[in-house]
């Protein structure tokens, strides 16, 4: 096969796969795997190359965290925390919104966003049903907080996991570089919630009393498992903080934690592994192969030179372009394939120019993660909550989410721009 025909085949397969992923006409995992297999079948890349293109650090980290969460959630600790928080807020709706949003943001920074909202949303619905109030003013802030909180750490959102793995940036690099700005963005977002929902939700005192009668201790289903889970989660977090200094990959830390918890929890691994989102894992694998194909035939290098030509190698312009393009793209298309494509692009920019690409990684992380708040389809957490509400009386429409999410996304990206310009370029 000539190099040119390889380029055409790789680009065509990649574009068609992207179109199918965006249109959702075919399951995203199925089409990504099909596209990847075609690249091998048509001899654009070899099978050995395809396996090498899969970033097993990202895959391992995702699996490790999914296993741990699957065990931890069986303790009922999330329900405990949510009910305790609602009671601390004395059943006052807006105070509940704020506390649950903060809890969601922190949980999303330490676990993945989808899992966090899937654990917080059910208990939030029980709370809003008890208060006989519309759940949307509670759920929309939780979704937004989840996407914001997930941006703060290496393990909080899949784009960060991918960036960390590709660049060797560690847990503490993410926490120290993105944590401060995320705290500011979350604070500003909470102030906006105050204006949006502060006085609009009124609940009778007898309903608040009903909520105050909840016993959070009843939520804990297994105290010994809770102790073991918190112990292993604590150790794993220490592992993440130290992994760069002890020269261990983040996936190694997550998999040690996951396997240790599997052993000491005595839970049946078959049941636990059933909860791992294998379709997401295979989606990642397919994308890594597809993007690897583009890299091999030189398309990524070509795109990188185009970007450099446009920005003339200006760091500030390149940083801001990556930030805003990532944010708008992630608001409407899946941010995982987008980031998978951007990572080799940024690496090529670094290789082809003299500019420091450090700020570009933070721009990509902030844009891709915060962009998820731009629309209902912007992030998996949004889609999951909307799907969960589909069979209830309180459906989350694209427009109702857009009205709140999009302005908050634009504001967050604007704050991020100021932060990056002031401290990095």
């Amino acid at each position, binding site marked *: 096969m000539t190099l040119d025909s390889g380029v055409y085949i790789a680009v065509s397969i990649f574009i068609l796969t992207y179109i199918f992923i965006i249109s959702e006409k075919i399951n995203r995992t199925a089409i990504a795997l099909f596209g990847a297999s075609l690249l091998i079948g048509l001899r654009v890349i070899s099978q050995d190359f395809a396996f090498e293109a899969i970033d097993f650090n990202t895959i391992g980290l995702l699996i490790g965290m999914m296993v741990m969460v699957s065990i931890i959630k069986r303790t009922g600790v999330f329900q405990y925390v949510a009910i305790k928080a609602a009671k601390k807020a004395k059943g006052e709706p807006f105070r509940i919104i704020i506390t649950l949003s903060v809890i969601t943001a922190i949980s999303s920074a330490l676990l993945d966003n989808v899992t966090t909202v*899937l654990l917080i*949303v059910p*208990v939030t619905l*029980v709370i809003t049903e008890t208060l006989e109030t519309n759940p949307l003013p509670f759920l929309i802030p939780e979704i937004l907080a989840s996407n914001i909180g997930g941006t703060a750490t290496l393990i909080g959102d899949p784009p960060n996991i991918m960036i960390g793995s590709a660049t060797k940036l560690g847990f503490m690099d993410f926490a120290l570089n993105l944590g401060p700005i995320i705290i500011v963005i979350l604070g500003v977002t909470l102030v906006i919630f105050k204006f949006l929902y502060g006085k609009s939700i009124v609940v009778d005192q007898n309903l608040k009393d009903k909520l105050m009668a909840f016993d959070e201790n009843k939520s804990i289903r297994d105290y010994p498992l809770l102790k073991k889970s918190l112990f292993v989660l604590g150790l794993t977090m220490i592992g993440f903080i130290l992994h760069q200094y002890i020269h261990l990959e983040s996936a190694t830390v997550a998999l040690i934690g996951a396997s240790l918890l599997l052993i000491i929890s005595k839970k049946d691994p078959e049941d636990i592994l059933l909860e791992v989102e294998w379709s997401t894992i295979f989606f990642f694998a397919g994308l890594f192969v597809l993007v690897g194909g583009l890299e091999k035939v030189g398309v990524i290098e070509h795109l990188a030179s185009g970007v450099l030509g446009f920005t003339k190698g200006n760091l500030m312009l390149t940083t801001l372009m990556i930030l805003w393009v990532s944010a708008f793209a992630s608001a409407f298309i899946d941010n995982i394939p987008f980031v998978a494509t951007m990572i080799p692009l940024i690496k090529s920019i670094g290789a082809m120019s003299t500019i420091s690409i450090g700020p570009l990684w933070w721009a990509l992380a902030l844009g891709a993660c915060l962009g998820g708040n731009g629309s209902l389809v912007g992030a998996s957490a949004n889609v999951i909550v909307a799907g969960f509400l589909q069979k209830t009386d309180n459906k989350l429409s694209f427009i109702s989410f857009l009205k709140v999410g999009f302005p908050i996304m634009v504001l967050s990206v604007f704050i991020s721009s100021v932060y990056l310009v002031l401290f990095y370029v």
Partner: protein
Amino acid sequence: MRKYMMAEVEKHQTIFSQLGAQVHVMNSLLCYITFDIDGTEVSYVYNVNKKDKYFLQRIEPYPEPAGTFNNEDELIDIIKIDIEQFKNAKNSHVFSDFVEINKSLSQTVRNFEDLYLYYNVPHDTMDNIKEKLDDIRTMIKEAKDSSERVYNKKDPDTI
């Protein structure tokens, strides 16, 4: 889809644990079996799980819990016999009456439950209902003694 189901389960667990329940969630497979016996649908639902407990329920032509079984052979035998009996019963000219009476009995059980749970029923009324039920049971026993037996592979479970 599994994510939504798990979130639904989380919500149920929160609600029931606040009501004081111990909730055990286990992975299982639900099997829905349908037969078409000369235009009459006979269907069952049961779940298969690691604990080897099979909860069998007949859905059509009228709903009836068929019990819990400890192994799949027992469960398959019960369904096989049930189907044979329905095929046999389908030949009877009172089959539609049989189905209607069974549906009516199921409905009566619900009616009685509602009566008791929603109203303070006088003792005399309860005695009266009990008496009428005893009459029906006697009628069934007398009908059994005077009718020709048409299925012999297994003895009846309750009469």
